[in-house]
């Protein structure tokens, strides 16, 4: 049987295959990886009828141009992109049935930093240590452990063309346009930053009290700018100087997604999806898990403030966020099951 494929005509700035991450191997130093904005990733998968663990493409700031050799049901969620099919705007945050031979051009972002393109059946790459997520520094996972390049061919599920048409036929309120069909309804973009500066909830880190009073005030009081040298491993922040009193070197210890490190050279780093598993820098704060997707939608140059919250409030925010997502995903699934 002919393989079902997707061809990469233009790779975009940094497009990688990501699922929800490589968990359970951090004791080997294996970095968790996974979608930076796990909420948008989950939504894109749900819109095409996939399970939450299917692999999708993470597009960063400038998206790829892709040629679908067979019909495919896709959804683009997360950042708002200039995205077109044969000159017509691609509707985002909803299922879109592309005809065989469709060229999807994803250009620059209009708002947000990362988009997730899910395809029915998922992107088929081998699982490495239980995950399809790309980890570029060690060159494993995803497509050959690297970002997409022009000329790459991605394999899709062999059943994807038939499955795409069958799934789309079950959806309500569908509309047909030139070259594609979509729905009149859409889901809301839950993680897009509004305005010029975002507020990110954070808990005091375990070394918070070691910073002087002015630094503690500044951390939660002032604005921070995301520096150019920010990536999937960490966001470097420019802002007030933070001074830690006396306390000497720390033993290397485990770090988390959202840990805010403040080394003595004055830099401040928020650890993101590709974060190192351990580190020896003081932890001034921990970003609330519910706000990591929002933070991952801010590109370098963007501004943020930290809003103090308790561990209990952060867990409650995460539970509420999941309940909202579950409600939306269930209503989509109801259509697919009907």
């Amino acid at each position: 049987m002919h393989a079902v494929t997707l061809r990469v005509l233009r790779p975009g700035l940094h497009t990688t295959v990501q699922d929800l991450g490589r968990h359970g191997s951090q004791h080997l130093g294996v970095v968790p990886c996974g979608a930076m904005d796990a909420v948008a990733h989950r939504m894109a998968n749900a819109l095409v009828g996939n399970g939450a663990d299917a692999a999708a493409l993470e597009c960063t700031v400038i998206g790829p141009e892709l040629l679908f050799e067979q019909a495919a049901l896709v959804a683009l969620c997360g950042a708002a992109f200039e995205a077109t099919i044969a000159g017509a705007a691609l509707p985002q945050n909803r299922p879109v049935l592309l005809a065989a031979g469709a060229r999807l051009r994803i250009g620059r972002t209009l708002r947000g930093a990362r988009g997730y393109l899910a395809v029915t059946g998922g992107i088929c790459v081998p699982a490495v240590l239980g995950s399809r997520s790309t980890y570029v520094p060690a060159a494993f996972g995803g497509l050959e452990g690297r970002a997409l390049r022009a000329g790459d061919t991605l394999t899709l599920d062999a059943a994807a063309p038939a499955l795409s048409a069958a799934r789309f036929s079950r959806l309500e309120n569908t509309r047909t346009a030139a070259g594609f069909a979509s729905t009149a309804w859409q889901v809301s973009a839950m993680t897009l930053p509004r305005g010029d500066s975002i507020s990110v909830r954070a808990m005091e880190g375990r070394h918070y009290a070691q910073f002087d009073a002015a630094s503690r005030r500044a951390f939660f009081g002032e604005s921070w700018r995301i520096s150019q040298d920010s990536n999937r491993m960490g966001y470097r922040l420019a802002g007030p100087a933070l001074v830690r009193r006396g306390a000497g070197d720390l033993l290397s210890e485990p770090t988390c997604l959202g840990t805010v490190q403040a080394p003595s050279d004055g830099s401040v780093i928020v650890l993101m999806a590709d974060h190192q598993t351990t580190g020896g820098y003081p932890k001034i704060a921990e970003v609330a898990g519910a706000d990591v997707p929002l933070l991952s939608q801010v590109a370098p140059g963007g501004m943020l403030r930290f809003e103090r919250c308790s561990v209990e409030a952060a867990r409650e925010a995460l539970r509420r966020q999941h309940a909202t997502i579950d409600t939306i995903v269930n209503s989509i699934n109801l259509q697919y099951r009907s």
Partner: protein
Amino acid sequence: MAAARSGFSIFAIGDSAVLAEFGTSLDLDVNSRVQRLAQAVRAKDVPWIYDIVPALGSLALHFDPVRLPAGLDPVSAIEDLLQDCLRSGLRTPRGSVPSVEIPVCYDAEFGPDLAEAAGLLKLSVEAIVRRHVASVHRVLMMGFAPGQPYIGGLDAKLALPRRATPRTRVAAGSIAIANAQTAVYPFEISGGWNVIGRTPLRVFDVTREPAALFAPGMQVRFVAITRAEFERRCTR
């Protein structure tokens, strides 16, 4: 933070992890206990804990708060779990401790910091190599990057601080020393330790079982090899 009953402090780090700290300075006995405790916790197979990460003197347990059983406080639940493991007694490895010999080429090209280290330590390059291969080292933890070991047991005469300016690129397989420890870099990454040599072995290979060459508790001996031997054994 809660002061615990038997030698550790325990607290939440963020909303999705709990850290138990057994010591704030490097202690080989404490480290060995932390590593064995991690294995005991792993054997319990708690459904809501997905990553168990032992480090030099502390242990983190990562969990998904959404999957926490209703009403369960993760800090006290994990404290109870650790106490339970400690009460049952930690297993000491039976038989001989696993050990590994790591061939290292200490040529100047592979050890760009050797000459500077020799100056700082007031030792010859040959003396540094002699001391590095003479000691029996032990893997204290895995961390930072996939398969990267932190190895204790460095000869006290080789104790050096980190470099003031980290190197932006350190080659895969590089052997580097700092703070009484040796690290082996699995991939080309940036690093602030003093690079003294390179091994031809693959430190981490996802196509191999196990993927990691090193494991906590493993005894390590470094063996000096020639450049020709390095080239012959290089599989990269």
